[in-house]
Every structure is written in structure tokens, then in C-alpha cells.
């Protein structure tokens, strides 16, 4: 273990691929996660907007038919 702890520093040329790999892994995880989330959120928001419109239409139809029923007949 002491050998591991005191291993000499890698030259910048040799260390660069490791550093770049670590940062690329991090950025890739974040980007993939955000892309998946964005796609799901967009589709949910689209669904939500459609459903809201349908509920409003249905409420408007219900309100007008109730008003018609309340009108005196004859």
C-alpha cells in the first residue's frame, strides 16, 4: 500500500488522457441524463397541454348543456 501511495507523478503527457477521460465521463453522464429528462418532460408537457384543452372543452360543453336544461320549457 505504501508503494501505491508514493508512486511517482505521471508526466503531463501521460496523465492527460486519464484527466480528459474522467471529465468526459462526467460530462457524458450529465448530458445523457439531461437529454433523457428533457425528452420525457417535453412529451409530458405536450400531453398535459392536450389534456387541459380537452378538460376545458368538456367543462364548457357541460356548462352550456346545464344552462339549456335550466331554461323553462314551453
Amino acid at each position, binding site marked *: *500500500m*505504501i508503494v501505491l501511495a508514493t508512486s511517482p507523478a505521471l508526466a503531463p503527457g501521460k496523465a492527460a488522457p486519464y484527466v480528459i477521460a474522467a471529465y468526459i465521463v462526467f460530462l457524458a453522464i450529465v448530458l445523457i441524463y439531461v437529454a433523457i429528462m428533457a425528452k420525457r418532460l417535453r412529451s*409530458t408537457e405536450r400531453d398535459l397541454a392536450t389534456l387541459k384543452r380537452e378538460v376545458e372543452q368538456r367543462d364548457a360543453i357541460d356548462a352550456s348543456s346545464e344552462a339549456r336544461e335550466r331554461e323553462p320549457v314551453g
Partner: protein
Amino acid sequence: MTTYSKGLRALTLATIGSITLALALVFFYAPLDADQGFVQKIFYLHVPLAIISLCGFVLGGLLAIGHLRTGDRVWDMRSYVAIHMALIFGIGGIISGSIWAKASWGHWWVWNEPTLVSFLIVLLLFATYQPLRFSIEDPERQARYASVFAITAGAFVPLNFIAVRLAQQFVHPRILTLGGGNLPGSMRLTFFVSLIGLALLYATLWKYEMTAKNARMQTRRLRRRLMGEDAVRPLGRSAAPS
């Protein structure tokens, strides 16, 4: 606009700004480490990822207490998202640590290093959270059991951390201590900017996920109102209250 999407844009901008600043400081301001050289730059990514991951697990436990106290399943959903995000950060931390270990020690993994193994144990413990949760069909029981698990496992995190700190085999670099650590000023500044950037990223992704879950909940409610109870599919793998 939902409760969770409030301030999301500002938080996202703050996250992008702080992470950009952190990257600039890492590569153009922080000096090269005398012992490890250029490969030490991984420290500014690996350590904040691990710290935020562990804090996220504890946060999940604290939010689960909110669920057991109030019975409101929104707290369970918050706890679920906190643990879910912490797992992702933990995986990032373990991969970046492994790359650093390979460059610095010549091995991808060292089994007799207490910090590495204890972090893996915590990660594996929380990896069982989702299978446990979704193996229970009844939503109320699912939320309750998941909360109990989150609190117990969340309490294990600081205990585990203290136990490792008390261990004698200090092979893993000890750079941060309660006394401020032994980092030079420029490295400390870079580290704390990175930590803030990644903490903001955690908060942004948490809010983002909560906004999505909230939107899905609203969709289900509206669909139920329009088409009746039977038209809405069972929740399946979702922590969102129905």
C-alpha cells in the same frame, strides 16, 4: 408553471456559470500538484462528486422522515429523487476515482483501501433502494417501506464515514479536514468553486426531476378526470403519488 419549476431557469444558469468557472479554475488557475502532477486535476471532480453523493443519501433520509411524520407522499417523492440523483453522482464519483486510481496507483481498484470499499458499500446499499421499492405493489406500503429504508441507510452514511476516518490505514489522500485541510489557497478556492458548481448541478437536476414528476402527476389526474379511473394505467415504476 409548477411549484418545482419556479426558479429552475435561474438555478440552471447559476449551475452552468459555476461549472464553467470551476473548469476554468481547474485547468488555468490551480497549480500542478508537486506530488501527483497533472493527474491530480481529477481531484476537483472526484471529491465533490463523492461528497455530494453522500450528502444526497443523507438528504434522502431526512426527506423520508418528513414522509413518515406527515404521511404526505410528496415527501417520499422528494426523498426518492434525492436518492436517485445521489446514486448517479455516486456512480460518477466511483468512475472518476477509478480513473484517478489507475493513473496514480496503476490499479483501477484497490480492495484493501478502506475509503474506496466503504464508498462502494454505501453505493451498493442504495442501489438496492429501487428494486426494494418497486417490488412492493401497494403504493402506500411502497412509500412507507422506502422511507424506512432511506432513513436507516441515510443514518449509516455518516457512521460509515466516521468509522473510515478513525481507521488507521490512511493511504487514501486526506486533503480536507475539519481544520481546513492542507490545500494551498488557489487549490482550495478551485475545490470549493467545483463543490459549489456540482452542488448546484445536484439541486438543478433534483428540481428538474421533481418538475417532470409533478407534470406526470397532473397528467394522470386530468386523464382520470376525463376518462375515468379505469382508463389510467397503474403507476408501475413511479414514486409519484397517484
